[in-house]
């Protein structure tokens, strides 16, 4: 959940600026930022581990500065899901931004509106559909993330367990009923989120017609 929020802002930020950079640079950045989507989760997990492991550059820095290690904590699970789901948000948001009608921005500018007002009040609402779609995809992927999470955060019940790792651990230990319970919870959460998104969209549409 938290990863989705983080990715929402991160994805928007990157999508917005990358939609503006020159083409060659755009192509290169695009490849780097989309890579986690294509790589197997274990590979992503391995790469993140190399980056933040206690003996690696970033990990060492954290250990020295804050006195703790990143892997095997609950928020390491968040970091790794952010990395994995980021491309989904970034890709869809960028697509949405590129379809934006720039004359709206120009007219806003000539009217003296600040660029941040134009971004939050005109560009985002205009691209709302694409951005919601990106969020839903990212959230779905975050919920289903297993490979990279299990490599970095491991499985410590009540601490770093995510639904997907819990289900796997329970099933492995022959606790079938327990596992099934978590499966149901997972289905329920996903269904509720999707339903909420659908309702939201429909209400927006009605508002547009009757207003």
């Amino acid at each position, binding site marked *: 959940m938290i990863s989705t929020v983080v990715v929402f802002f991160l994805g928007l930020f990157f999508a917005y600026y990358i939609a503006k950079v020159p083409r060659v640079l755009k192509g290169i950045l695009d490849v780097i930022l989309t890579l986690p989507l294509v790589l197997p989760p274990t590979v992503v997990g391995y790469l993140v581990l190399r980056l933040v492991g206690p003996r690696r550059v970033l990990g060492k820095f954290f250990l020295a500065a804050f006195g703790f290690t990143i892997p095997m904590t609950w928020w390491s699970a968040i970091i790794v899901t952010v990395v994995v789901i980021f491309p989904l948000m970034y890709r869809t948001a960028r697509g949405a931004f590129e379809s934006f*009608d720039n*004359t*709206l921005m*120009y*007219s*806003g*500018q*000539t*009217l*003296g*509106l*600040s660029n941040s007002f134009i971004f939050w*009040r*005109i560009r985002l*609402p*205009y691209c*709302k559909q694409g951005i919601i779609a990106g969020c839903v995809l990212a959230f779905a992927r975050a919920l289903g993330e297993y490979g990279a999470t299990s490599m970095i955060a491991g499985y410590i019940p009540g601490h770093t367990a995510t639904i997907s790792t819990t289900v796997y651990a329970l099933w492995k230990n022959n606790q079938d009923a327990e596992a099934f319970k978590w499966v149901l919870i997972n289905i329920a959460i996903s269904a509720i989120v999707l339903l909420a998104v659908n309702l939201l969209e429909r209400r927006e549409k009605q508002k*547009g017609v009757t*207003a």
Partner: protein
Amino acid sequence: MALSVDIQKRLGNFELQVKFETAEGMLAILGASGCGKSMTLKCIAGIETPDRGRVVLDDVVLFDSEKHINLKPQNRKVGYQFQQYALFPNMTALQNVMCGVREGNRQEKRQKALAIIDRLHLNGCENKKPSMLSGGQQQRCALARILVNEPQVLLLDEPFSALDAHLRFHTERQVENIINDFGKTVLFVSHDRDEVFRLTDKIAVMENGHLKTMGEKHEVFKDPSTIGGAILTGCKNISDAEILSPNRVFAKDWGIELSVGEIPEDFRGVGIRMHDVKLLRHNGDHQASAENAFHCKVIGEIENPFSCSIMLRPDGKEGERYILVDLNKERWNEIRSEYLDVCLPSEKILLLK
């Protein structure tokens, strides 16, 4: 109140080079699509940056490449109406107009916005989204949003092109009144000569990124001076031509010699408007005596709602192009012959560069 523009901008093979000055009142830039009209407006508004030059509005330098001055569009006090209006689709008409108010708290902004909505007869539309407004209402809403912003100059980019033909005339009159009340400099860009002629007194003709002719509208229509200008002002009969003697030219496309007035420098062609071609009685009596008179074969006719355009080719010539003559329907039905005698009065012939 004056706007002075002198800019250059290169875009691939296209070169924009525009220089003009205008005081208050309305100046129309007439040009075919893609000639750089909109780009000029965008450079004035600060949406595009010229490569070189200066833009000055009421003694305020908006852009100067030498002094590295380039004000943000937000600070230029330029009202820009886009072809498709560019209303914010997620906001109501009132919210759109409120976006244009620069100063004041929410309540004051609302008051100002409501006042201008009332002035432009948009009452009842306040809470509608732009998609629910008619074309004319959208247009006025965009104007309201700009006027409430209190700009020093108004830039109108093809303001009527998105409207249906029957709405256009009516909307034009409304906009004319609004603009007259505005009382400052207005730049109006269009490819429609009728629109331009009805709305403005001063016209500049733009071709390929360059301003060709600029002047009072009657003058420009009487003497467009360039081939492009002649086409834009609606001249249908244009031919390349060669100079034969000081007062005589050969129109290549029609294969005929013509007596003309004083030939300008860089002379390239002649033109004559459809309604300026004079019909002689077709029995041929006056043929010999009249200047620039020709015996022509009728090679086709085009029926318009209220007139006929007759396509003529001088007899015995194999020119590429024909000469079009406008006749009223009854007259043509009376005559209806295979040959017509026409005269191209020398004082009506346009001498073009």
